[in-house]
């Protein structure tokens, strides 16, 4: 269980970007003397992933999540540092390595547009050296898990986005890879389809003990799937650890809305030393530190006549949103 399946050490990647002045003069100048700038998009990152883990990569657009993912599956050649994925150097793209991994990109499709998905599955099966019998067995198993059936026999162009995504997943998983790389897998799907996809990934992870690395903009994907998150900011890792811990660190307080039975009680409560956010008549909102929440609530319940009480967890989306926009924070 505790074996490291992905091992990244001091990984850096810089891209050469040619800069060109606008206009014809700039074009001519560019033609004779190419001016290139080297931009470091990934700066000296290191991390490990254990077998069977689900890791979420968080970060704003352009933070470098996709670049990391693509380096892990061998599509981008690293500039410095070392990567090992299940014992292989990814960028060599050795056959046995490729048979071990899969990449799923939301809204990028590999299925043949004019044909039913089943045709693409058998094509992929032959590419991955599976015989027809084995392919049939796997298609049956995966389509049961994904809850698709007759859609497999309808041309892809006539499928809905959700059905198409399920078929894409099936095509990407037919060789039973034990490492899954997902880049924005839920992009453009509706809430229902998103939920189904997450449910499936969870089930797949449980049943096959496959390792899953995913990036997503939907916080729900991360919070419901990943116990561990890696936050990427400007090409560096700003946080790597448990999701709960991250949330606790980022939001050390809770909001509590108390409905008192009378206005006097509310007034009394307002003046008893709590951090009051706002108050209207008999309703009062106070902010309590996570550490003292139980003791504070006990005192309130004992001393005041309370009609109702709501504990507002600050929405996770908002917190993670904060990570994405905040430029300089340290955890």
């Amino acid at each position, binding site marked *: 269980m505790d074996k490291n399946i992905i091992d990244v050490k001091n990984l850096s990647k810089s891209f050469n970007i040619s800069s060109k002045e606008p206009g014809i003069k700039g074009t001519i100048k560019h033609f004779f003397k190419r001016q290139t700038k080297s931009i470091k998009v990934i700066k000296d990152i290191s991390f490990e992933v254990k077998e069977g883990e689900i890791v979420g990569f968080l970060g704003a657009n352009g933070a470098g999540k*996709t670049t990391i993912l693509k380096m892990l599956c061998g599509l981008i050649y690293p500039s410095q540092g070392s990567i090992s994925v299940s014992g292989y150097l990814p960028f060599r793209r050795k056959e*046995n390595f*490729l048979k071990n991994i899969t990449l799923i990109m939301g809204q*990028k499709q590999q299925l043949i*547009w*004019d044909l039913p998905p089943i*045709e693409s599955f*058998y*094509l992929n099966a032959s590419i991955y050296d599976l015989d027809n019998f084995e392919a049939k067995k796997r298609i049956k198993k995966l389509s049961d898990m994904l809850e698709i059936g007759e859609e497999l026999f309808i041309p892809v162009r006539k499928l809905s986005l959700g059905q198409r995504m399920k078929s894409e997943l099936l095509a990407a998983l037919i060789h039973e890879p034990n490492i899954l790389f997902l880049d924005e897998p839920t992009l453009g799907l509706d809430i229902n389809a998103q939920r189904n996809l997450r449910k499936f990934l969870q089930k797949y992870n449980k049943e096959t003990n496959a390792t899953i690395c995913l990036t997503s903009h939907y916080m729900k994907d991360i919070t419901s799937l990943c116990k561990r998150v890696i936050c990427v900011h400007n090409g560096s890792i700003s946080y790597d650890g448990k999701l709960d811990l991250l949330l606790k660190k980022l939001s050390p307080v809770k909001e509590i809305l108390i409905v008192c039975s009378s206005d006097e009680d509310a007034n009394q409560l307002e003046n008893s030393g709590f951090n009051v956010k706002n108050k209207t008549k008999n309703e009062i909102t106070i902010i309590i530190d996570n550490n003292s929440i139980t003791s504070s609530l006990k005192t309130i319940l004992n001393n005041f006549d309370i009609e109702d009480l709501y504990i507002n967890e600050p929405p996770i989306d908002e917190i993670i949103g904060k990570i994405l926009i905040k430029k300089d924070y340290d955890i």
Partner: protein
Amino acid sequence: MKTRKYLKVYRKFLHTSLASELEYKTNILIDLITAILSLIGSIFLLSIFFQNNNSIGGWEFEQALIIQSIYTILNGITNTWFNPNLTEIVKHIREGTLDFVLLKPIDSQFFISLKKLTPSGILEIMLGFFLLLYCIKINQINLTLSFLILCLITIICSICILYSLWFFISTTTIWFVKTWNATEVLRSFLYIGRFPLNSFSFTLRIFFSVFVPIAFITTIPSEVFLGLSEIWKILLEVIVAMVFLFTSRRFWLFALRFYSSASS
């Protein structure tokens, strides 16, 4: 083991692309009519050239027809394999799905140059083949085994050169996404292949044998059919074909290195 896998995958390619093309049946018919009209048109043009002359560049009308038939066969091959796959590569790169191809445990050049097939081109190949048979009859060519083997070798070499030219252009899509216009340039050059090389002026002849080896593609096989070709020309074509295949392969691998170190 390896070849068996590739054969199996190719069978699947055939199956899937035929099935997708059959979704547009009228298209196949229209393409066939286009191929027939195009052949009639070029024979018409040839007949204009020959209406007051007996020979052009030393080729008589019946002999020039052989070039037409070989051109039609090669054009059919281009339309069956090279052109649809080039379209597919452009799509792969524009939509970023080349990544899927590169992550498959199969040779990417194999995948990318043989995935698609347009069946109407096969009809064009047959059309060219019938014309070739007719030409063999009217030119009273004796078919012997060694002769046929020689013809086959030169035609295969032509196909290899043609494939490499198309694949070169396909590869450049990795840098410039819009290669359509470059293929138009190549197409207009290939158009020259309908006529005997000797009918052009000396400078053009040099250009079309050294820079863009169109000359090798149709003229040499036709000369072989007429028994006019010298052995050194055939050898030269084999060498040129091998050099082209080799460089197109190297160029593709180089482009892939570039792709994987520069794309984001």
